[in-house]
């Protein structure tokens, strides 16, 4: 099979997507992705010169917006109800920089 991404590429992608991948998972994920990417090559063989992309399948719909009106949102309790960890009315995350380095 053709190789589009190496294990190290996949490790980089995983880091970017913030998905921890173990060393054992890496070879299978790499093989799966190469298998899938191989199926995508059809679109690279197309001559698409001058073809406008369609980013939205909505015909001529444009300028969809709303008026500047305030409507009730969630109560504070509703907002925090599903949070794994809270403090002082806010959502909590562990150290972002991981301490001084």
């Amino acid at each position, binding site marked *: 099979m053709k190789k589009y991404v190496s294990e190290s*590429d996949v490790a980089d992608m995983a880091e970017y997507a913030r998905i921890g991948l173990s060393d054992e998972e890496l070879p299978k994920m790499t093989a799966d992705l190469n298998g899938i990417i191989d199926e995508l090559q059809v679109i690279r063989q197309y001559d698409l010169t001058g073809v406008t992309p369609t980013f939205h399948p909505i015909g001529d*719909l444009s300028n969809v917006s709303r008026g500047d009106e305030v409507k009730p949102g969630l109560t504070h309790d509703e907002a925090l109800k599903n949070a794994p960890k809270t403090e002082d009315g806010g959502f909590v995350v562990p150290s972002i920089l991981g301490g001084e380095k």
Partner: protein
Amino acid sequence: MSDIFGTMSAAQIHQGLASKEFSAAEMTDAILSGIDAADKSIHAFLQVTPDLAHEAAQKIDQAIASGDFESMGPLAGVPCAYKDNMNLRDTHTTCASKMLENYVSPFTATCVQDTLDAGCIPVGKTNMDEFAFGSTTESSVFGPTKNPWDQTRVPGGSSGGSAAAVAAGMVPVALGSDTGGSIRQPAGFCGVVGVKPTYGVVSRYGVVAFGSSLDQVGPFARNVHDAAEMLNAIQGRDPKDCTSQQSAKDFTANLDEGVKGMKVGVVPAFMESEGLAPEVKNAIEAAAKHLEDAGAELVEIELPNAKAAISAYYVLGPCEAFSNLARFDSVRYGYCDEGHKTLAEQYEASRAKGFGAEAKRRIMLGSYLLSANEYHNYYYPAQQIRTLITQDYQRAFEKVDVILGPVSPCTAFKLGEITDPATMYLFDMFTVPVNISGNGGMSVPLGLGKDSSMPVGAQLICPAFGDENMFRVAAELERCYGSNTVAPDFASAAQANASAGANASADGSASAAVSADDQKGGTR
């Protein structure tokens, strides 16, 4: 008792309530116990909501008592199930993922609210492929749903729970979502009607997004009329979804008109596709013949760029999914792997453990395809191919009113039969072009396949915002093949009488109904 209600159509239930044959409370109890019984083997539901159901039933009974019921629409009192990617306030929305196992939604999706406003009785949330990634419902972290026609087979997916719940007579109607075939394919596999409306007909607000430019919500039902009533209720512009559009049609209006004078497109290239099972091919050809006999004109058309649809779909879907699933980060809600010192560690561990294999594959793929180096190799050209595919349909619909073809290349396969993701993706070849262009499509049962004795579905595709065309043709097919069919294991004698029309076999030979015994021979 439960069998009776479980196999009644939505219209029959509504009528029974109106004529006070039964109360909403007793009907709801029977439906809930029916779910209880059938779901032990099928596992269509992730959550049953008896409290909400009883509350809604009580309101219906009050309306009946006060005389207000008469002014309520045709869905008043109809039990409905929802795919578990749809938010219903104060219930779980799990997306069949460990990531959202404990998530309790603080709001209700517009499409769900529309059915509640129409008087539907919410009975629960149905199983699905994790985050709708899949075509078998096997990737649900809570275990697969079984096909009611043969429990060794998959119900299809990703809306497999909704399709199976309808097919097994647990509910008359349910909602699903379709990103690449996730309503039509399970409807086909389970022998029910499944509609993916034109993109924009139904609001996506409150439905957990997979591929935002591809996702569309639609109904499952055991007959075309019920499906049309459901779409009537959920259609229309929602200020909360900028891609939803004005739509206020009565999709039941032309169901009795027949197809005389209609032009039905058939795509020879599709019928010659490699991998199209002979029983499916025969069934579609027979359906075409039926329509011709009923006065429709068959017109051969071409969709030359459909061959690139799978590739374009597996670029667009994962790219949008990668971005849509970035929000599941263990901070505001969702699975959090506790005890990590840094945010990066918590992110990586939570997402590694919270997402299943297919979700991870698609997120990783999207992250690769959207990277600055690859954007112009895949994402951008895929959107150009979207233009070509859309133009194909526009040209085709200058000549025809509807396109007839297969939903899937084969009938339902065995649980665990297909494990390679790239192979699995190819099964979506007939359904994904429609999501890419945004056109509407629906699956209509054609009876059972000659070889597998499993349901075969026909796909009808309509011009953008011409969804009434496919309903009209679907109604004609229903007149040929029968309606309100419940999978035999779940159909009682009472149902056999209630069901309109006899079963017909998919190859079109008259009254060659396949008995449940024949189908199940030796499977258990």
